[in-house]
């Protein structure tokens, strides 16, 4: 592969039907879960910040299916879908958003801090760019212990303005660490468009300046995301050094539930919605004779059922007793 690549136009043939349906089903699971989250936010069941991923599902779906179960994942505060596809049960994610003790972070983290140590999902990090140095360190630990594993680090394009991006990129390249940097470029850092915040808007050029190989891919196309991430992950596994992939994507909803969206035209949003990852992929599958309308409805119904069960689980789950307030500040049995 070249030092830098552009796969925005390149997509190979349709994947095998079971896998194609799995990709579609997973995008639907994220979409239906988050639509319910928005509804529950309105009902004040979920509070705090809630950053929806709606419109960007192809990125997490294509990328997560390119990773091995033993890989590390570091994510951002817009990580509900990543956690779900990493295998964190939807019940535990929903309970976390409710703030219940049965949540995947025992109700201490909330929407922005989903964790699952057993699945090597190192969180929801709500400081933009904060995950990159952590990913470098996880990969360093693996290298020093002789463990062959990829550390996948998701972040948005807003992170490229942070020092942590540049320091992390340099360290990973300098020390040849197996970090897969996955940049979800949804064009707006909260309300600031990329071209209003960066002199260089070609993100791959920034990564390449650290001698990190790069790929740019259409983040609305789940097949393209999957293919690109597979290629990048394979190179990281084989050669040991880092790789940078940019997914060009778009969030259909506001930045968070507090965002009135004054900074972008409705027409722009509508234009991107035409390229929505779920309907475009299902249309492709139907055109190829790989999916019927009933088949689609079955997948959608399964996602809806999983969401309904997760909400029921979260509703029924217990609150952590307030007597436990000071728990988990430090490690029990440890010195501090």
């Amino acid at each position, binding site marked *: 592969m070249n030092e830098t690549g552009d796969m925005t136009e390149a997509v190979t043939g349709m994947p095998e039907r079971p896998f194609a349906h799995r990709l579609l089903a997973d995008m639907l699971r994220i979409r239906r879960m988050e639509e319910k989250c928005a509804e529950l936010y309105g009902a004040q069941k979920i509070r705090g910040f809630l950053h929806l991923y709606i419109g960007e599902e192809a990125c997490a779906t294509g990328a997560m299916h390119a990773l091995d179960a033993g890989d*590390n994942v570091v994510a951002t505060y817009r990580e509900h879908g990543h956690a779900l596809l990493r295998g964190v049960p939807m019940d535990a994610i929903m309970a976390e958003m409710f703030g219940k003790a049965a*949540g*995947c*972070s*025992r*109700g*201490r*983290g909330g929407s922005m*801090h989903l*964790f*699952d*140590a057993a699945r090597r999902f*190192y*969180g*929801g*990090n709500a*400081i933009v760019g*904060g995950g*990159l*140095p*952590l*990913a*470098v*360190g*996880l*990969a*360093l*630990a*693996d290298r*020093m*212990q002789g463990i062959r594993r990829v550390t996948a680090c998701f972040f948005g394009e807003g992170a490229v303005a942070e*020092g*942590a991006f540049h*320091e*992390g990129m*340099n*360290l990973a390249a*300098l020390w040849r660490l197996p970090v897969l940097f996955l940049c979800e470029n949804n064009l707006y850092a909260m309300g600031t468009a990329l071209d209003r915040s960066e002199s260089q808007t070609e993100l791959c050029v920034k990564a390449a300046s650290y001698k990190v190989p790069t790929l740019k891919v259409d983040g609305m196309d789940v097949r393209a995301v999957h293919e690109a991430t597979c290629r990048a992950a394979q190179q990281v596994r084989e050669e040991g050094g880092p790789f940078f992939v940019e997914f060009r994507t778009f969030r259909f909803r506001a930045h968070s539930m507090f965002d009135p969206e004054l900074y972008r035209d409705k027409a722009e949003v509508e234009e991107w919605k035409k390229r929505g990852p779920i309907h475009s992929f299902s249309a492709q599958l139907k055109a190829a004779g790989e999916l019927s309308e009933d088949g689609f409805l079955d997948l959608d119904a399964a996602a809806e059922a999983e969401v309904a069960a997760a909400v029921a689980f979260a509703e029924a789950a217990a609150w952590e007793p307030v007597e436990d307030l000071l*728990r*988990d*500040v*430090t*490690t*029990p*049995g*440890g*010195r*501090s």
Partner: protein
Amino acid sequence: MRVSYREAMRQALHDALVSDPRVFLMGEDVGRYGGTYAVSKGFYDEFGPERIRDTPLSELGFVGAGIGAALGGMRPIVEVMTVNFSLLALDQIVNSAALLRHMSGGQVSVPLVIRMATGAGRQLAAQHSHSLENWYAHIPGIRVLAPATIADARGMLAPALADPDPVVIFEHAQLYNTEDELRDEPNEDWRCDIERAAIRRPGSRLTVITYGGSLPKALEAADELARDGIDVEVLDLRVLRPLDTETIAESVSRTHRAVIVDEGWRSGSLAAEVMARIVERCFYDLDAPPVRVCSEEVPIPYAKHMEDAALPQAAKIVAAVREVLNV
């Protein structure tokens, strides 16, 4: 055996590197240069560049990488050259190291040790003379240590590495050349506790409470006062978070008076926290209001006489003790 603070710290690091393959040292100029304060001199040749890892000037990046490596099963010792530069890494220390355990609902721990030099007194001017221990001592989720003696420089690192949570160790730059006798029995276990404050000099009339680079000044003041027949106790906090309130309260309840010495600025200082705890715990045992000797509220100046005037000094401690005792 007479040993310097620098040598004691070097021996402690050497022990850690020899005894645990998960331990590695990472920071600016820790390797080929031998450490800014020569603490890791010779380590690069002995342990190699993987375990004595020179970093670029990327405090945020390599402290964060230390946190990640700790999550990944290693036992990193990250050296941030001085507390002044740790401000560039503050986000990772406060928002990641200190919080990950809690935010994850107890699923992960961060067994990381961060070492940094601190303090003023060498005419390094305002940007290289900070004493910001209190900023770190404010944060739940991290332990903060201030070894002020040769024995603590030798003995605090091993228990800090055994701690499953982040530990920040402040080494006052003025202490590196101090010397003291250190036991040299073979196979000696140098570990000390990292829980309790220590009475460095017993006394009856007043307790001088201090830590780090101010300890030698407090002991000097106590010597001078003793020559005039004034017998004061000197308490070394040692552990700045969590504070050992019991030892403080026990001492002050006995002496009924307290002077707190802190190289940090007075406003919002660690001395203020110690004073608050004394008032909460010992109010009815006090015979006089506690008094603080802190740095003056000015950036640390370059000129020697002005720097001296800005910092706590033995003479200021003596004057404060005399004021409280009215002698």
